[in-house]
């Protein structure tokens, strides 16, 4: 069977997320337990998490999480990394042997700082430099796959049910202010660890439930700007789109949301003149980044989360609050596990972004 | 509520009723009918004899006409008008008061004082339904009929009875048939068709004396007959008008609003002498369409509306044994005549000062109304239009702009 990247694999999913607006620590068991009631939304072929604020001691270093097929690949990859980065620390990611998770690859993490001289010669900033490195490894180095590359954050994913993946990675031992989770229901994957979600680039991560119909339009557009959609997954292309719009074009989250889940022209035309002008501009300039077909995503970055549905709301997604915490999940049941007394349960409308910033963005 | 009184129950009366009702739905209308019939069309009496219509179908308006128009119909003969008291007295002494009076008294046959006429057993005039019914009783397959008068009435009578009698002779002092509407050449065509159908003519000749079943002609000839029909002419019924002090010439003089010279009295139909736009002066135009339109105009004005009928022209459509003839307007001596012969027919247009003033069509009368309207409207025509008009009657005579109004607008 072909794995992700060789063929486009549709899948259904479960997603969940929690964030503390005050930036308070939340342990990983909170999020992986929330996936249990949504067990049937996954099929054991992929589960994963993104956690923010988990590496405070290395918060200024890029944290690479990498799967290796083989020891020799690790050596080769490490050599390449060292050509471009100062590797401050490299270690195995601690895991727990459990019967539900098997056939694991070699899983390492590296805390690195870009070599300024190399970076200067490429005339790019550290983010672009790091992103290029990730693309290079993932497209050209067979058997090595970088699945996390942000600062003070990390993705953890595996083939298996998400609640088991959480136990496998000992997530209860990590404390972060924001977590997202994903359980996957792919229809024809052999089960490749790299194909599990979240998908991330730098500190951006995406968990996504849906199957977008605009995929190839989006992919062929975004690939003009140096991105390579090696996995052929929605999550990958959405991550790149957001990276392009937010980091490269400098759009705000709200603006980016109105590109990828653009309001209908009839809605735009009913807006006040200034708003109308802006929305028309965004749809005119970035028509190929409109995403159609069902999706519910939670986009994570250092300092916040954004939940967004496709403009027709073809996938379920609810949000709720309790004190400083905001919860997001495909089903209310997941939220009730995290916080039985959650309040202000809300189903965001299609195309309506729900944006939560830690400490109102002054994080 | 206004009291409208109409003397007469013919076409003009119907026009008058409908004219009043178009303006005043409520006023009281009284109609005095000399004939004890529902309103019928007098020109149909020959068609009745011919079998082309029935008494039933001859009704000019549906059975419920009076009812629907809320008209009080009285059979009787009006004999006296009192303009001071504004009343009309009937033969039976009944007095009817009016606010507005319309005289639609029509005309009656003119019978010259022939010597020995009283010796003729079967003699008829041909004007009313009763005339027609009386004549019908006298008809038989071997009867010899002498008709005095080769005008419209005489000839229609001839056509109507042709299949029901043995022979018909028509005499007229004029040298041609239909002398009032046709010139000699056109008349000859019509005469020919009549002759083909067994009718004989003695033209330029007329009866001067009768003895039983024999007529003695001016020329000295003698004609034996069984039935005599007198169709010499008609006279407007103006007696009441005279009483009312209306100005009367050949008919009751009316303006283009159908008022007589006496206040509150109107006149319409064959009794009236209205404006003939083809000659620019008043004259009696005893034709049915004219009667209706005058009646309608009178009715509207009686009811306080304002209607003007100022474009009456003489016109006739008549046919004998399948040969049709249409005429309209006047035929001034100094008009240019454009002539076209057609198969068994003829077309003559009389053009003067860039206008069509009259025409005669024998045979093909298709779209004759286009010509009639040119006469009626006195339409000014340029050379191109005149050339087009000479070809045949069509809307091509008009400019594209005028045509688009006619065919693309509400008319």
């Amino acid at each position, binding site marked *: 069977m072909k794995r992700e990247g060789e063929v486009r694999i549709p899948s259904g999913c479960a997603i969940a997320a929690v964030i503390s607006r005050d930036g308070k620590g939340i342990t990983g068991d909170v999020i992986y337990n929330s996936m249990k009631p949504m067990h049937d939304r996954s099929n054991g072929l992929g589960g994963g998490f993104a956690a923010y604020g988990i590496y405070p001691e290395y918060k200024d270093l890029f944290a690479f999480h990498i799967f290796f097929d083989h020891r020799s690949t690790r050596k080769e990859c490490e050599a390449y990394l060292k050509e471009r980065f100062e590797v401050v620390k490299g270690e195995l990611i601690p895991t727990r042997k459990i019967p539900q998770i098997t056939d694991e690859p070699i899983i390492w993490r590296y805390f690195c700082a870009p070599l300024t001289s190399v970076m200067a010669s490429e005339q790019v900033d550290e983010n672009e430099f790091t992103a290029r490195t990730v693309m290079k490894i993932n497209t050209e180095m067979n058997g090595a796959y970088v699945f996390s590359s942000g600062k003070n954050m990390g993705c953890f994913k595996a083939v298996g049910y998400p609640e088991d993946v959480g136990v496998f990675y000992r997530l209860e031992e990590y404390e972060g202010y924001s977590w997202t989770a994903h359980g996957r229901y792919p229809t024809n994957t052999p089960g490749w660890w790299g194909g599990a979600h979240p998908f991330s680039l730098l500190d951006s991560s995406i968990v996504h439930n849906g199957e977008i119909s605009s995929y190839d*339009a989006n992919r062929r557009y975004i690939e003009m700007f140096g991105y390579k959609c090696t996995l052929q997954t929605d999550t990958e292309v959405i991550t790149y789109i957001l990276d392009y719009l937010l980091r490269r074009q400098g759009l705000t989250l709200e603006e980016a949301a109105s590109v990828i889940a653009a309001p209908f022209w009839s809605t735009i035309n009913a807006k006040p003149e200034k708003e109308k002008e802006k929305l028309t501009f965004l749809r005119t300039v970035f028509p190929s980044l409109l995403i159609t077909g069902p999706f519910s995503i939670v986009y994570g970055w250092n300092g916040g989360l954004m939940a967004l549905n496709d403009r027709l709301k073809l996938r379920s997604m609810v949000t709720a609050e309790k004190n400083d915490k905001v919860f997001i999940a495909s089903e209310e049941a997941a939220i009730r596990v995290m916080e039985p007394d959650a309040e202000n349960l809300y189903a965001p409308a299609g195309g309506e972004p729900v944006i939560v910033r830690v400490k109102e963005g002054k994080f | 509520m206004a009291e409208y009184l109409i003397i007469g129950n013919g076409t003009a009366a119907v026009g008058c009723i409908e004219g009043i009702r178009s303006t005043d739905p409520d006023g009281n209308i009284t109609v005095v009918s000399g004939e004890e019939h529902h309103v019928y069309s007098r020109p149909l009496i020959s068609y009745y004899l011919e079998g082309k219509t029935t008494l039933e179908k001859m009704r000019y308006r549906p059975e419920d006409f009076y009812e629907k128009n809320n008209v009080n119909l009285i059979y009787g003969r009006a004999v006296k008008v009192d303009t001071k008291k504004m009343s009309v007295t009937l033969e039976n002494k009944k007095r009817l008061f009016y606010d507005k009076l319309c005289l639609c008294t029509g005309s009656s046959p003119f019978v010259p004082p022939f010597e020995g006429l009283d010796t003729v057993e079967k003699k008829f005039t041909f004007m009313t339904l009763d005339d027609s019914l009386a004549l019908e009783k006298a008809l038989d397959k071997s009867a010899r009929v002498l008709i005095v008068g080769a005008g419209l009435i005489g000839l229609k009578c001839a056509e109507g009875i042709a299949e029901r009698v043995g022979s018909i002779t028509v005499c007229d002092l004029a040298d041609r048939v239909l002398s009032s509407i046709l010139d000699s050449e056109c008349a000859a065509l019509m005469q020919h068709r009549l002759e083909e159908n067994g009718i004989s003519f003695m033209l330029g000749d007329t009866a001067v004396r009768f003895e039983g079943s024999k007529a003695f002609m001016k020329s000295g000839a003698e004609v034996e007959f069984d039935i005599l029909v007198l169709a010499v002419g008609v006279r407007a019924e103006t007696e009441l008008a005279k009483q009312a002090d209306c100005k009367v010439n050949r008919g009751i003089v009316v303006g283009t609003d159908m008022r007589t010279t006496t206040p509150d009295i109107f006149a319409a139909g064959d009794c009236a002498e209205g404006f003939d736009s083809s000659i620019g002066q008043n004259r009696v135009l005893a034709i049915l369409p004219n009667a209706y339109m005058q009646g309608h105009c009178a009715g509207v004005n009686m009811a306080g509306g304002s209607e003007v009928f100022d474009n009456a022209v003489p016109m006739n459509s008549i046919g004998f044994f399948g040969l049709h003839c249409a005429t309209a307007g006047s035929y001034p001596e100094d008009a240019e005549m454009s002539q076209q012969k057609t198969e068994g027919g003829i077309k003559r247009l009389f053009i003067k000062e860039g206008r069509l003033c009259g025409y005669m069509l024998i045979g093909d009368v298709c779209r004759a109304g286009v010509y009639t309207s040119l006469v009626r409207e006195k339409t000014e025509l340029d050379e191109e239009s005149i050339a087009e008009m000479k070809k045949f009657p069509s809307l091509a005579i008009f400019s594209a702009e005028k045509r688009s109004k006619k065919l693309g607008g509400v008319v």
Partner: protein
Amino acid sequence: MKEHYIYPEFEVVRNENRCIKCRVCERQCANEVHRFDPDLGIMISDEAKCVNCQRCVSLCPTHALKIVKSDCRLRENANWSDETIKEIYKQANSGGVLLSSMGNPKPLPVYWDKILINASQVTNPPIDPLREPMETKVFLGKKPDKIRRNANGELITEIAPQLELSMPVMFSAMSYGSISYNAHASLARAATELGICYNTGEGGLHEDFYVYGPNTVVQVASGRFGVHKDYLEAAAAVEIKMGQGAKPGIGGHLPGAKIVGDVSRTRMIPEGSDAISPAPHHDIYSIEDLRQLVFSLKEATEYKKPVIVKVAAVHNIAAIASGIARSGADIIAIDGFRGGTGAAPTRIRDNVGIPIELALASVDQRLRDEGIRNNVSLVVGGSVRSAADVVKAVALGADAVYVATAALLALGCHLCRTCQSGKCNWGIATQDPELVKRLNPDMGSRRLVNLMDAWRHEIKELMGGMGINSIESLRGNRLMLRGVGLTEKELSILGISHAGE
């Protein structure tokens, strides 16, 4: 010299049991095929004059007529077809270049028909266009590489001029002269009602149609007919015509007989003079010359109107398009080899150029590979025949399509392919006032609007099936296409997988 007799191509079959001798066929045939014989009391036909335009068939009130292909054949020969042989006879008779009209009729591959469209099942939902909004609006024009903000951090929303279309279809260039006033009126009115554009072609813009300017693309072709300031200013966009799919590499020739009255005035050339469009623009012998013309036109229109460059699909189209995309043009229009024409040498029409499907796929990919796809919008034409073709073109990467033949068919054209005769019985490809009036623009525009409304509905249905609710998400979405019966090479050029993959 007596010419060789060539048996007529068509036969007129009249059902005498149905013919009522109303003579409509006689009155409506400008080729004078039908005639009433008063002595015989029947209608008779001169079949040698018949071009099979079907006007008589269409108007015969009792359906007593049909036109059939003559079965008088030469001895069968797989190499020497009847048509080939008859063309030789014609040329031997006349010594002339053979002329034809409309698009290439040869049985060359139609790739649209070898491409199939996807639909959603289970893993994501099809969308019902009757229930959900379904958007077809597109903006054609150059898109900025980078957004800009003002001092307050607000987006600066000014961008290069865009052509807004309610659906990704435009009526392509057909000149006034090659088609009639009423055909132009129909196209202009329909485009306006539909919120799309029509194209003047190279014959100028009749003064009556300036009112439709916001829905008009004006063309500047090698003959520069009718080009002046007001003409450029009236338009929504200006198109430089470099070539035409039906006759790449050659110009045009409208005979002086058609340069009469309004046509002469609109083209700004004397009555009766032949209108010759040179093969090249004589001020464009290279790509840098094109750039100068593009900017001349932009200067003339104060950078307020997008400039389209139209080229025929030829072998090196991807590189040509890349050059155009860098020339300052806002839109590239590519015309495939099946595109129509009012007159073209038969040999050129039938043998020059390449299919639009392949040209489109390679151009779209090339511009993406070079990262300049956003510099230009891509409009393709050359036999887009249905809503399915539109959907396939957009999924291959087109921003919009140009249709002309389909529009003419809606106006009554029966593809008899004798436009060059000027005796179009349907009032389209003619300047004879008696024939021109046969096309009532009230009906013509209504039929065009109907056709496009129908296509719009179908496009929405197809999009809905794919789970796509806006045309933007279809553009370049080649995953929605699969090939059938295509070689690896064809699939790779089209950038699509084979059905079943």
